[in-house]
């Protein structure tokens, strides 16, 4: 079994040399299990700190925790799937924008998922 911290901090663990060392020592069957756990970890809400921190980088324009005080849309309390879909559409150039296409291309899928989960969990205005 992976250590407990794997669930809580898969982001840190994933990128640490300890993770590489652990993976190199493991039999292939366990690795397949790891891959599944990684996928679950990235898609789930376990990584709340990543979501919180990526969401904080949006706050300058969209307001703290996504509660906007102006014409830039609020993100707090919005449906997670809708936010993820919109960001992917911006990134892929399928949704028109002034600035969001240029910004969205800077974020990974897991960052978008994590931030969307964070915003979805916030109370709206």
């Amino acid at each position: 079994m992976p250590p407990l911290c794997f669930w809580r901090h898969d982001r840190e663990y994933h990128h640490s040399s300890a993770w590489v060392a652990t993976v190199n020592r493991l039999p292939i069957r366990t690795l397949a299990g790891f891959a599944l756990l990684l996928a679950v970890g990235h898609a789930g809400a376990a990584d709340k700190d990543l979501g919180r921190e990526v969401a904080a980088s949006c706050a300058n324009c969209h307001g703290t925790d996504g509660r906007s005080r102006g014409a830039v849309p609020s993100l707090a309390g919005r449906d997670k799937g809708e936010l993820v879909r919109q960001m992917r559409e911006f990134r892929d150039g399928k949704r028109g924008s002034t600035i969001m296409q240029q910004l969205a291309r800077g974020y990974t899928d897991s960052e978008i998922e994590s931030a969307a989960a964070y915003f979805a969990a916030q109370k709206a205005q």
Partner: protein
Amino acid sequence: MLGSRRDFLRAGAASIAASAVGARGSTPVSKVVVVGGGFGGATAAKYIGKWSAGSIGVTLIERGSAFVSCPLSNLVLGGSRQIADLTVPYEGLDKWGVRRITDEAQSVDPAARTVTLVGGATLPYDRLILSPGVDFIWSAVPSLNNATAQEKVLHAWKAGAQTVALRRQLEAMPDGGVFVIHVPMAPYRCPPAPYERACQVALYFSTQKKRSKVILLDANEEVQSERELFVAAWNGRYKGYVEYRPNSGLTDVDVATLTAKLDFDDVKADVLNVIPPQHAGAIARQLGMANANGRFCQVDFLTYESTVQRNIHVLGDAIQPASLMPRSGHMANQHAKVCAAAVVALLSGGEVNPLPVVANTCYSYLSDREVAHIVSVHRYDPATRTMSVVPGSGGLSPAANSEETAYAEAWAKNIWADMLG
């Protein structure tokens, strides 16, 4: 009213969080002192309060009684904003448990981990966050190296009294006069701002003083940001009002005659606005932390800890940023949140985010109602231990437009609230 009611409710939530912590272990265990209440320092103080839920004691040292925003301050020169519109009180930080002291940091003892204030108090810290902004290198403009000269030849590069005074000089200038702006060699605070300023002064001339003009003397070889957008404005809407002269390094000024002395030329002004070269604020330089060309502070981009002094972090315009990261209020706010998360993690036994991502957004006002943006996204690269622009991200507005003006205004309201609300 809605805002104050919401703030009241939030304040209630903060008190509950604080008492829960109190029930667990009385007063906060760790102490963070933040020096400087600008875009970097105020944001760091708020977010450490927010993310530690009261378990870290945060003190903010700021000499000013209220925050005055540099972004949008060129609009005070243009006449479409008053300085009061850009002034935000510090009281909003109280609900995050931030202890505020109106004073100035005089010295730091890194071994004892204490900060001594001009007012005499000495504060202990576990982690110190310096967000001192920039000081001007007056020795580079010898005749301005005294207070009397600095009252006549203004910089208006720190918003507030200087901004208002420069607007008064502009209003008092006779029609047919010349408003000279000198732009220092990069790097300087906010790359597009000198060019935005030229547009705002030209806007005023184009409606109030049609025989006047702006001469923009730039020490650099070209416009440093959003070049095509600014040049289009000068050749279009402001044709005849703006003269741009690149490669115009300043050797000194003649204060009595308001003359800018260049390497091969003298330019006489009716209003002379010199933006002097800049370096990190004194408190950081005193500690030997300005280790990038003796001017700016190198930091670890995972934590914004100085590469010279342990337990001391630096934010905002005082740092030596990675390539293509501008010195801007927006960036300082982003540095602050990466730093706040790292400081909370370091003081509570957590793990520091190994791949922080930050973004920059600047809206420049080319008139009172047309703006253009420049945006970039930067992610930490573990191989080089620096921040790199994410390939394919970022860009500019294709042209100045009024569609984005409401977004620019929302940006200002939201970032001010993100640091102080």
